[in-house]
């Protein structure tokens, strides 16, 4: 049971970030590398803010805003200064590394073990009955992830959300609708990096410290989660092996969250099987490739049948 709890905790923390990557990679079709730095941005800001006495719940919102701002910068560099998408992300990622260190007060490692966090505070200690306490963290994470997912689903069904989906689907149509596609992209990047920084904040409060290296590979984790979730769990890209379980078509946001948990389960299994951390990246990339190839194969088949 504790194995599953552990995987769920890790998976749900990263799920919020994966939702962000879903926005950039799946909806906007924009390979956004800035998430590698907005994840630690959220963590750094949270550590500093909590030490300064800011309420832990409020740091979640602050982190979201800071991440959104960073996303706007990536968008601005890409849209207004006409720098290629990958490069804009790399520029922001590199610059934010220094800025993150500054936000953390010049330190690469800021512990907040003794501080109150959203997972550990007098309110929870008082109100949560003892038999529930082992599940409290998963429960809180579940609620945060659910809230993010529902808000994102709601947003994607607003007029602004329609436009966001349209810009990744068909840029020309957005222009035809007399809307500046650049602005729409900036909004999308802001949202995505907001979610990522929010995940960073949750991560920091869960682990009890900020470390400058936590952002390394965020994008890869996010991509892996998105691809695993979407390809394996949504029937749209072919017949899902699990599609019979779900009455309705699974929402992509749900699939992404499940993908994140699944990814962490794979990593956990890989570690347990005695694979070295050195090899994990290689395994991730192979896993990646297999899923991508299998899903394109399937799509091809669907097409030839049509």
């Amino acid at each position: 049971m504790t194995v599953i709890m552990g995987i769920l905790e890790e998976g749900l923390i990263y799920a919020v970030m994966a939702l962000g990557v879903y926005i950039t990679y799946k909806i906007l079709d924009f390979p956004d590398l800035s998430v590698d730095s907005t994840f630690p941005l959220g963590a750094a800001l949270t550590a500093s803010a909590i030490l300064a006495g800011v309420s832990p719940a409020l740091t979640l919102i602050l982190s979201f805003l800071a991440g959104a701002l960073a996303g706007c910068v990536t968008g601005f560099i890409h849209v207004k200064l006409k720098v290629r998408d990958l490069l804009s992300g790399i520029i922001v990622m590199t610059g934010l590394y220094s800025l993150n260190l500054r936000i953390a007060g010049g330190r690469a490692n800021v512990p907040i073990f003794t501080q109150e966090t959203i997972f550990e505070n007098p309110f929870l200690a008082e109100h949560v009955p003892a038999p529930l306490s082992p599940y409290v963290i998963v429960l809180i994470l579940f609620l945060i992830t659910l809230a993010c997912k529902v808000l994102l689903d709601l947003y994607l069904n607003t007029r602004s959300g329609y436009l966001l989906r349209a810009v990744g689907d068909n840029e020309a149509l957005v222009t035809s609708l007399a809307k500046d596609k650049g602005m729409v992209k900036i909004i999308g990047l802001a949202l995505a990096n907001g979610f990522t920084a929010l995940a960073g904040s949750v991560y920091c409060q869960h682990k009890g410290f900020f470390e400058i290296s936590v952002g390394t590979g965020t994008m890869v984790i996010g991509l892996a989660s998105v691809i695993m979730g979407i390809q394996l769990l949504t029937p749209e890209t072919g017949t899902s092996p699990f599609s019979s379980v779900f009455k309705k078509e699974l929402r992509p946001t749900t699939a992404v969250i499940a993908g994140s948990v699944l990814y962490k389960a794979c990593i956990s299994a890989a570690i347990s099987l005695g694979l070295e951390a050195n090899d994990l990246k290689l395994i991730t990339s192979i896993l990646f490739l297999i899923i991508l190839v299998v899903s394109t194969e399937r799509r091809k088949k669907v097409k030839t049948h049509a």
Partner: protein
Amino acid sequence: MKNYVKALILTAMASCLLAGCSGSSDSASQGDGKESYTIGIGQFAAHGSLDNCREGFLLGLAEEGIVEGENLTVLYENSQADGGIASQIVTNFASQNVDLICGIATPMAQSAYGIGKKQNIPVIYTAVTDPVAAELAGADGTPVGEITGTSDKLPVTQQLEMIRAILPHAKTIGIMFTTSEVNSLSTIEEYKAAASDYGFEIVDTGISTTADVPLAADSLLEKVDCITNLTDNTVVASLPVILDKAAKKNIPVFGSEIEQVKIGCLASMGLDYIDLGRQTGKMAAAVLKGEKKASEMKFEIIEEASFYGNTKVAENLGITFPEELTSSAKELFHEITQ
């Protein structure tokens, strides 16, 4: 919502399967005073000193009668300096119900504590330079929770004393450090505070990545009579570059531990990491046997440092080690290992 819950349950089940193939924890976990133990050792990065720590740790346990393969199952993982993996490793240990987690180096110790305290798993750390700054212990050394261990704080004054003995006329010591490494910052402060007692001035230069090392080394070598190293990971990894440049200018470079002396540093007053690990292992044994709780033990520091010297380097530089150092040397090397 329904689908969301279903999907999560499904993935949880899949995780179960995946995790199932990992082989779960030791059957014995009925509290203190039992026959056999399972511990998880998480090491943050792979380098000589940390490996020695781990080796010493197991020796220390064995001396207390807890022997790997007999009454001890050891789960060992290395995170290769990746913070995300570090926390995943510890989560894995916790989910296998280990009796104790040993965290080697600061980030691993912090991850272990963050996870361990939620599941009441005691944590023993080693090779944490400043447990107080890492918030693993209070200012007086008392643990913040069920966590204690040993610190590998550099013997700064002894190193300065040694440099003075070898180089009676030197005035300035250069130190290169990575701006993102917390331990380096606090050690430099200590060097600066103590330097004047030995008639030295400290010149420091910060770098942010490996790529900065060559230029920083050039500029540092212009200003100093000798260089001393910290245990700064980035700088140590690029040590050959610095040694090469320093050798060309005939400037001695002092190391901070044995491995650095092996590869070409002139000398070092260093910790014996095996001893450090052994000391840590004994603390862990006390916790495992239920003699003491981790929260009841202050963290420990190895007080005595030993002299390590490289005579080949000394010969190249035209320096002879003073007799009182060589006689007390723990180990002398007569060649440079590449």
